């Protein structure tokens, strides 16, 4: 992997308000930073927008999952009722497609829902047992509570310990800390 496993992961700036975070993130993105991320205790759409994250592939995964569920159940029902175990139920045709719609519908939803949930987790790289950001004590205690963070990562070509620290301090954050691996 290209990601270094020693040294520092990045520089982490802590902000008091969502507005301050979005302002800093926008400035960093405009300055050419690409390996950066924002952290907030609730979904902060503006922050994702300014760092250039507009679209995600969860809807596509959900659609594919749903179609798979639909096809799987409908073909299973058809195969069972016409070939594997044909039963005469009140003289109705063995291929009674209207009756097959209901379980096929349920499985469409089942597969689509599971794809949405597990697809979202997979795209997010979760579950993960370790992440370097949790080495920063202020991140641990307040990232999921009430503070807003911007992390400029060491893998970005623009990264330089002193210069980046100065750059971040220009946005008047509560603090800027180095995050170790």
């Amino acid at each position, binding site marked *: 992997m290209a990601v270094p496993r020693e040294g520092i992961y990045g520089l982490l700036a802590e902000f008091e308000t969502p507005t301050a975070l979005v302002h800093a993130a926008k400035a960093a993105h405009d300055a050419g930073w690409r390996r950066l991320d924002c952290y907030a205790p609730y*979904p902060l759409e503006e922050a994702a927008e300014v760092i250039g994250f507009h679209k*995600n592939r969860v809807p596509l995964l959900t659609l594919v999952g749903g179609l798979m569920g639909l096809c799987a159940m409908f073909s299973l*029902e058809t195969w069972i009722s016409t070939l594997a175990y044909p039963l005469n139920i009140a003289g*109705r045709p063995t291929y009674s497609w209207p009756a097959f719609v209901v379980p096929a519908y349920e499985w469409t939803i089942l597969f689509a*829902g599971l794809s949405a949930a597990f*697809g979202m987790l997979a795209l*997010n790289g979760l579950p993960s047992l370790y992440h370097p950001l949790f080495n920063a004590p202020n991140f641990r205690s307040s990232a999921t509570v009430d503070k807003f963070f911007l992390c400029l990562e060491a893998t970005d070509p623009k990264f330089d310990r002193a210069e980046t620290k100065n750059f971040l301090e220009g946005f008047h954050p509560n603090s800027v800390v180095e995050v170790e691996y």
Partner: protein
Amino acid sequence: MATKDFTTEDPRLDPATGELRVLAPGQSFKSVTAKIADIVLTPHTSLGWLMLFSIGGSVATMLLVAVTWLFLKGVGIWAITQPVAWGFAIINFVWWIGIGHAGTLISAILLLFKQGWRNSINRFAEAMTIFAVVCAGLFPLIHVGRPWLAYWLFPYPNTMNVWPQFRSPLLWDVFAVSTYATISVVFWYVGLVPDFGTMRDRTKSKFGQYIYGMLSLGWRGSVRHWMRYETASLLLAGLATPLVLSVHTVISFDFAVAILPGWHTTIFPPYFVAGAVYSGFAMVLTLAIPLRKVYHLEGLVTDRHIDNMGKVMLATGGIVAYGYGMEVFMAWYSASHWELFMMWNRMFGPMGWSYWVLIACNIAIPLTTLWVRKWRTNLTFMFVMSLIVNTGMWFERFVIVVTSLYRDFLPSSWGTYRATKWDYMTYAGTFGLFLSLFLLFIRFVPMIPMHEIKMMLPTAKVKPEAVEAGD
């Protein structure tokens, strides 16, 4: 008209809209987190919780006894026989699953309609859904006669070379209810992941950090993660909405596809769904009113919530009333002797009392009083009303099942139905199971979604002009 009950200085009113406030003023990110998380993180378990849990556990033990005896003796210990071959098991199944539907309605449909007020109540309403589905699912499982073979319901390759019959609504039910249970659990858990992250970061105990850390899956609140998370939540809501409608529709097919007078009717699907939501909101009120009192959550679950739930009950109660009216009308309009007799027998036969209990509890009492906002925000009134409506909805299923069956086409085969002590013990026992599960939930899991409440706070908004100006 009802607005006159409140003056403009009333602190419960939002001056901007004139509506009741969704959240009490003066909350911050920190106070919301502390309020919700500390209910769980306190090392002190209250005496009241322990007492309720022991009651719940004892009643659940009674369920265990009843079910053990059932497994030893068979379903003959219940009152079901000819002509009433479906009894308490199906009544309780439909009743419990109907209660569950309000949780999905709150978490999914109201999310799609951007009803922000739902955020305070959606977590525990969804927990209620899951526990209600557990209680509901128990009944068909123990009713199949040989429950250890219940897996025969699913299509799987077996040495008997036998496959299920896909033209039966009872098999549709298997798929509808199992999908519903799975999606409800997944939706609930996805909603919990970021809050488990907060719990992990807040708890002082090593063990708590370990457990909540595992449950949070390593959530760290990256905005990229949040965006995918929001998309997945919306998609799950969009999927759960048709699902919840289909589940009760399929359950109504169990009846409506039969040719029995009283069951064979096309009004069943919408009227079952509305009834489910009606009883479910009543159950949410039964749980929410004591919860907010005990845990001092009046700032988060406000009068607005109680008021809105009353309005939903009023609307769904109206649909249910239309359903009852249409059943009576069709019995007459069909000009079918059997339909007419069934309806007459349902109202004035030996079990006619149950029909009038249903009319009183579901229509006469709630639909005349819930119009008044002063009463809709009166906690005692709403609590009593929620119990009345749930009693009424139980009787609705009793009336549909029993009074359609006990006097069918041939007078020589008429009979009656009298539940046995095992029926009552099983039904009462599921309350113990529900109560125990719900108490465990409020002790170990944050019962209000913290990140969704934070989104609603005024400080959560980004000021666009300040972003540009660099303030």
